[in-house]
Protein backbone atom coordinates (compact mmCIF):
# COMPACT_ATOMS: atom_id res chain seq x y z
CA UNK A 1 0.00 0.00 0.00
CA UNK A 2 2.80 2.35 0.92
CA UNK A 3 4.33 1.60 -2.44
CA UNK A 4 1.13 2.67 -4.23
CA UNK A 5 0.97 5.89 -2.20
CA UNK A 6 4.55 6.67 -3.10
CA UNK A 7 3.61 6.32 -6.78
CA UNK A 8 0.34 8.27 -6.57
CA UNK A 9 1.27 11.15 -4.25
CA UNK A 10 3.89 12.85 -6.48
CA UNK A 11 1.32 13.00 -9.32
CA UNK A 12 -1.67 13.93 -7.13
CA UNK A 13 -1.11 17.74 -7.08
CA UNK A 14 -1.20 17.87 -10.88
CA UNK A 15 -4.36 15.75 -11.09
CA UNK A 16 -6.07 17.80 -8.36
CA UNK A 17 -4.99 21.04 -10.06
CA UNK A 18 -6.37 19.87 -13.41
CA UNK A 19 -9.75 18.88 -11.95
CA UNK A 20 -9.98 22.00 -9.78
CA UNK A 21 -9.19 24.17 -12.78
CA UNK A 22 -11.92 22.53 -14.87
CA UNK A 23 -14.55 22.73 -12.14
CA UNK A 24 -13.76 26.29 -11.05
CA UNK A 25 -13.75 27.44 -14.70
CA UNK A 26 -17.05 25.74 -15.49
CA UNK A 27 -18.72 27.18 -12.40
CA UNK A 28 -17.18 30.59 -13.03
CA UNK A 29 -18.45 30.64 -16.62
CA UNK A 30 -21.97 29.70 -15.52
CA UNK A 31 -21.91 32.23 -12.66
CA UNK A 32 -20.78 35.12 -14.86
CA UNK A 33 -23.28 34.32 -17.65
CA UNK A 34 -26.23 34.00 -15.23
CA UNK A 35 -25.41 37.19 -13.34
CA UNK A 36 -25.16 39.12 -16.62
CA UNK A 37 -28.39 37.53 -17.88
CA UNK A 38 -30.22 38.54 -14.71
CA UNK A 39 -28.93 42.11 -14.94
CA UNK A 40 -29.93 42.38 -18.60
CA UNK A 41 -33.40 40.95 -17.89
CA UNK A 42 -33.94 43.50 -15.14
CA UNK A 43 -32.83 46.37 -17.37
CA UNK A 44 -35.05 45.10 -20.17
CA UNK A 45 -38.08 44.89 -17.86
CA UNK A 46 -37.57 48.48 -16.71
CA UNK A 47 -37.18 49.73 -20.26
CA UNK A 48 -40.18 47.79 -21.59
CA UNK A 49 -42.30 49.14 -18.74
CA UNK A 50 -41.15 52.66 -19.44
CA UNK A 51 -41.90 52.26 -23.15
CA UNK A 52 -45.37 50.87 -22.35
CA UNK A 53 -46.13 53.82 -20.05
CA UNK A 54 -44.98 56.24 -22.74
CA UNK A 55 -47.26 54.59 -25.33
CA UNK A 56 -50.25 54.75 -22.95
CA UNK A 57 -49.66 58.43 -22.11
Amino acid at each position, binding site marked *: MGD*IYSQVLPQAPYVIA*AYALIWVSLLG*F*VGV*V*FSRLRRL*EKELDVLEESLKRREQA
Partner: protein
Amino acid sequence: MKKRSMLAEIMLVLGGIITTVALLMAFFWAPASLYPDGRVDFAQKIFYFHVPVAEASFLVFVFTAYYGIRFLMTKRREYDTKAKIATEVTLFFVLLTMATGILWTRVEWNVWWQWEPRLTTYFIMTLLVIGYFVLRNSVEDEEKRATYAAAFGILAFIDAPISFLITRFVQSTHPVVFKSGGLETPMLVTFIIAQVGMIMLGYAFYQLRLQQEQLRERLDALKISVGG
Protein backbone atom coordinates in the same frame (compact mmCIF):
# COMPACT_ATOMS: atom_id res chain seq x y z
CA MET B 1 -40.50 38.28 -17.33
CA LYS B 2 -38.80 35.05 -18.41
CA LYS B 3 -36.58 35.55 -21.43
CA ARG B 4 -34.40 32.43 -21.31
CA SER B 5 -34.90 29.15 -23.09
CA MET B 6 -35.60 26.20 -20.85
CA LEU B 7 -33.61 23.82 -23.07
CA ALA B 8 -30.30 25.57 -22.33
CA GLU B 9 -30.95 25.41 -18.60
CA ILE B 10 -32.02 21.76 -18.76
CA MET B 11 -28.85 20.91 -20.72
CA LEU B 12 -26.80 22.85 -18.17
CA VAL B 13 -28.25 20.94 -15.23
CA LEU B 14 -28.04 17.56 -17.00
CA GLY B 15 -24.51 18.30 -18.21
CA GLY B 16 -23.52 19.28 -14.67
CA ILE B 17 -24.97 16.07 -13.21
CA ILE B 18 -23.43 13.85 -15.90
CA THR B 19 -19.95 15.39 -15.61
CA THR B 20 -20.13 15.06 -11.81
CA VAL B 21 -21.07 11.39 -12.18
CA ALA B 22 -18.14 10.97 -14.59
CA LEU B 23 -15.82 12.62 -12.07
CA LEU B 24 -16.88 10.12 -9.39
CA MET B 25 -16.55 7.23 -11.85
CA ALA B 26 -13.05 8.37 -12.85
CA PHE B 27 -11.81 8.14 -9.27
CA PHE B 28 -13.96 5.39 -7.74
CA TRP B 29 -14.88 3.04 -10.60
CA ALA B 30 -12.44 3.22 -13.50
CA PRO B 31 -9.35 1.14 -12.73
CA ALA B 32 -5.99 2.80 -12.32
CA SER B 33 -3.88 2.83 -15.43
CA LEU B 34 -0.47 1.20 -15.14
CA TYR B 35 2.87 2.00 -16.73
CA PRO B 36 4.56 -0.92 -18.60
CA ASP B 37 6.74 -1.53 -15.51
CA GLY B 38 3.62 -1.96 -13.32
CA ARG B 39 3.74 1.40 -11.52
CA VAL B 40 0.42 3.29 -11.07
CA ASP B 41 -0.18 6.04 -13.64
CA PHE B 42 -2.37 8.33 -11.52
CA ALA B 43 -1.99 11.26 -13.93
CA GLN B 44 -3.99 9.27 -16.49
CA LYS B 45 -7.08 10.41 -14.52
CA ILE B 46 -6.60 13.84 -16.16
CA PHE B 47 -7.47 12.16 -19.47
CA TYR B 48 -11.16 11.68 -18.48
CA PHE B 49 -11.72 15.43 -18.61
CA HIS B 50 -8.83 16.74 -20.71
CA VAL B 51 -10.01 14.82 -23.80
CA PRO B 52 -13.75 15.67 -23.49
CA VAL B 53 -12.85 19.34 -23.08
CA ALA B 54 -10.61 19.14 -26.17
CA GLU B 55 -13.31 17.34 -28.19
CA ALA B 56 -15.83 19.97 -27.09
CA SER B 57 -13.47 22.69 -28.35
CA PHE B 58 -13.26 21.02 -31.79
CA LEU B 59 -17.02 20.52 -31.90
CA VAL B 60 -17.97 24.08 -30.96
CA PHE B 61 -15.36 25.40 -33.40
CA VAL B 62 -17.35 23.68 -36.20
CA PHE B 63 -20.12 26.23 -35.51
CA THR B 64 -17.70 29.13 -35.97
CA ALA B 65 -16.98 27.89 -39.49
CA TYR B 66 -20.62 26.92 -40.17
CA TYR B 67 -22.07 30.27 -39.12
CA GLY B 68 -19.18 32.03 -40.86
CA ILE B 69 -20.22 30.35 -44.12
CA ARG B 70 -23.89 31.16 -43.44
CA PHE B 71 -22.95 34.79 -42.83
CA LEU B 72 -20.94 35.08 -46.03
CA MET B 73 -23.85 33.56 -47.96
CA THR B 74 -26.62 35.69 -46.45
CA LYS B 75 -24.90 38.70 -44.79
CA ARG B 76 -27.38 38.32 -41.90
CA ARG B 77 -26.07 39.76 -38.64
CA GLU B 78 -27.48 36.94 -36.51
CA TYR B 79 -24.99 34.49 -38.07
CA ASP B 80 -22.10 36.76 -37.20
CA THR B 81 -23.33 36.87 -33.60
CA LYS B 82 -23.66 33.08 -33.51
CA ALA B 83 -20.16 32.60 -34.98
CA LYS B 84 -18.72 35.02 -32.42
CA ILE B 85 -20.40 33.24 -29.51
CA ALA B 86 -19.27 29.82 -30.82
CA THR B 87 -15.69 31.12 -30.98
CA GLU B 88 -15.96 32.47 -27.42
CA VAL B 89 -17.05 29.06 -26.15
CA THR B 90 -14.29 27.46 -28.26
CA LEU B 91 -11.75 29.75 -26.60
CA PHE B 92 -13.02 28.73 -23.16
CA PHE B 93 -12.58 25.03 -23.96
CA VAL B 94 -9.28 25.57 -25.76
CA LEU B 95 -7.76 27.32 -22.73
CA LEU B 96 -8.98 24.54 -20.44
CA THR B 97 -7.52 21.92 -22.79
CA MET B 98 -4.17 23.69 -22.87
CA ALA B 99 -4.03 24.10 -19.08
CA THR B 100 -4.99 20.51 -18.26
CA GLY B 101 -2.75 19.21 -21.05
CA ILE B 102 0.24 21.10 -19.71
CA LEU B 103 -0.34 19.60 -16.25
CA TRP B 104 -0.50 16.10 -17.77
CA THR B 105 2.62 16.73 -19.88
CA ARG B 106 4.54 17.85 -16.80
CA VAL B 107 3.83 14.55 -15.05
CA GLU B 108 4.14 12.16 -18.00
CA TRP B 109 6.94 13.74 -20.03
CA ASN B 110 8.69 15.68 -17.24
CA VAL B 111 8.40 18.91 -19.20
CA TRP B 112 5.78 21.67 -19.26
CA TRP B 113 5.74 21.77 -23.05
CA GLN B 114 6.98 19.78 -26.01
CA TRP B 115 6.88 20.85 -29.64
CA GLU B 116 5.37 17.60 -30.89
CA PRO B 117 2.73 17.53 -33.70
CA ARG B 118 -0.50 17.44 -31.62
CA LEU B 119 0.60 20.09 -29.14
CA THR B 120 1.99 22.32 -31.86
CA THR B 121 -1.12 22.17 -34.07
CA TYR B 122 -3.37 22.71 -31.05
CA PHE B 123 -1.23 25.65 -29.97
CA ILE B 124 -1.68 27.10 -33.47
CA MET B 125 -5.45 26.61 -33.06
CA THR B 126 -5.31 28.47 -29.74
CA LEU B 127 -3.50 31.38 -31.39
CA LEU B 128 -6.00 31.39 -34.26
CA VAL B 129 -8.95 31.51 -31.86
CA ILE B 130 -7.33 34.39 -29.95
CA GLY B 131 -6.50 36.01 -33.31
CA TYR B 132 -10.19 35.88 -34.24
CA PHE B 133 -11.00 38.25 -31.38
CA VAL B 134 -7.98 40.45 -32.06
CA LEU B 135 -9.26 40.79 -35.63
CA ARG B 136 -12.82 41.57 -34.48
CA ASN B 137 -11.60 44.25 -32.11
CA SER B 138 -9.39 45.87 -34.71
CA VAL B 139 -12.11 46.53 -37.31
CA GLU B 140 -14.61 49.29 -36.53
CA ASP B 141 -17.00 48.95 -39.45
CA GLU B 142 -19.63 46.39 -38.45
CA GLU B 143 -20.14 44.89 -41.92
CA LYS B 144 -16.41 44.59 -42.63
CA ARG B 145 -15.75 43.17 -39.15
CA ALA B 146 -18.35 40.46 -39.63
CA THR B 147 -17.06 39.59 -43.12
CA TYR B 148 -13.39 39.44 -42.10
CA ALA B 149 -14.23 37.47 -38.95
CA ALA B 150 -16.33 34.97 -40.92
CA ALA B 151 -13.52 34.42 -43.44
CA PHE B 152 -10.91 34.16 -40.69
CA GLY B 153 -13.08 31.77 -38.66
CA ILE B 154 -13.52 29.45 -41.66
CA LEU B 155 -9.79 29.45 -42.42
CA ALA B 156 -8.88 29.02 -38.73
CA PHE B 157 -11.16 26.00 -38.48
CA ILE B 158 -9.00 24.15 -41.05
CA ASP B 159 -6.49 23.62 -38.24
CA ALA B 160 -9.04 21.70 -36.09
CA PRO B 161 -9.23 18.48 -38.18
CA ILE B 162 -5.47 18.70 -38.76
CA SER B 163 -4.86 18.85 -35.01
CA PHE B 164 -7.40 16.09 -34.33
CA LEU B 165 -6.03 13.67 -36.93
CA ILE B 166 -2.31 14.47 -36.90
CA THR B 167 -1.39 11.83 -34.32
CA ARG B 168 -2.71 9.20 -36.73
CA PHE B 169 -0.59 10.31 -39.66
CA VAL B 170 2.59 11.72 -38.15
CA GLN B 171 4.74 10.03 -35.53
CA SER B 172 3.82 11.65 -32.23
CA THR B 173 4.45 11.08 -28.54
CA HIS B 174 0.89 12.24 -27.75
CA PRO B 175 -1.45 9.29 -27.02
CA VAL B 176 -4.07 8.37 -29.63
CA VAL B 177 -7.37 7.98 -27.78
CA PHE B 178 -9.71 6.52 -30.36
CA LYS B 179 -8.11 3.29 -31.49
CA SER B 180 -9.36 -0.28 -31.23
CA GLY B 181 -8.55 -1.95 -27.94
CA GLY B 182 -7.20 1.31 -26.53
CA LEU B 183 -9.22 1.41 -23.31
CA GLU B 184 -10.70 -1.07 -20.84
CA THR B 185 -14.52 -1.01 -20.72
CA PRO B 186 -14.89 0.89 -17.39
CA MET B 187 -12.39 3.48 -18.61
CA LEU B 188 -14.19 3.83 -21.94
CA VAL B 189 -17.63 4.13 -20.27
CA THR B 190 -16.32 6.80 -17.87
CA PHE B 191 -14.75 8.67 -20.76
CA ILE B 192 -17.92 8.52 -22.89
CA ILE B 193 -20.07 9.78 -19.99
CA ALA B 194 -17.65 12.65 -19.37
CA GLN B 195 -17.69 13.40 -23.09
CA VAL B 196 -21.50 13.47 -23.27
CA GLY B 197 -21.69 15.71 -20.20
CA MET B 198 -19.10 18.10 -21.59
CA ILE B 199 -20.88 18.36 -24.95
CA MET B 200 -24.13 19.14 -23.11
CA LEU B 201 -22.34 21.83 -21.11
CA GLY B 202 -20.83 23.20 -24.32
CA TYR B 203 -24.28 23.43 -25.87
CA ALA B 204 -25.70 25.08 -22.74
CA PHE B 205 -22.83 27.60 -22.60
CA TYR B 206 -23.32 28.48 -26.24
CA GLN B 207 -27.09 28.92 -25.86
CA LEU B 208 -26.82 30.94 -22.64
CA ARG B 209 -24.20 33.28 -24.10
CA LEU B 210 -26.30 33.63 -27.24
CA GLN B 211 -29.36 34.53 -25.17
CA GLN B 212 -27.28 37.07 -23.28
CA GLU B 213 -26.10 38.63 -26.55
CA GLN B 214 -29.63 38.67 -28.01
CA LEU B 215 -30.96 40.32 -24.83
CA ARG B 216 -28.23 42.94 -25.05
CA GLU B 217 -29.11 43.67 -28.68
CA ARG B 218 -32.81 43.95 -27.76
CA LEU B 219 -31.92 46.24 -24.88
CA ASP B 220 -29.84 48.49 -27.15
CA ALA B 221 -32.73 48.69 -29.63
CA LEU B 222 -35.18 49.57 -26.83
CA LYS B 223 -32.83 52.20 -25.41
CA ILE B 224 -32.83 53.89 -28.80
CA SER B 225 -36.67 53.73 -28.89
CA VAL B 226 -37.01 55.16 -25.37
CA GLY B 227 -34.37 57.80 -25.96
CA GLY B 228 -35.81 58.90 -29.29
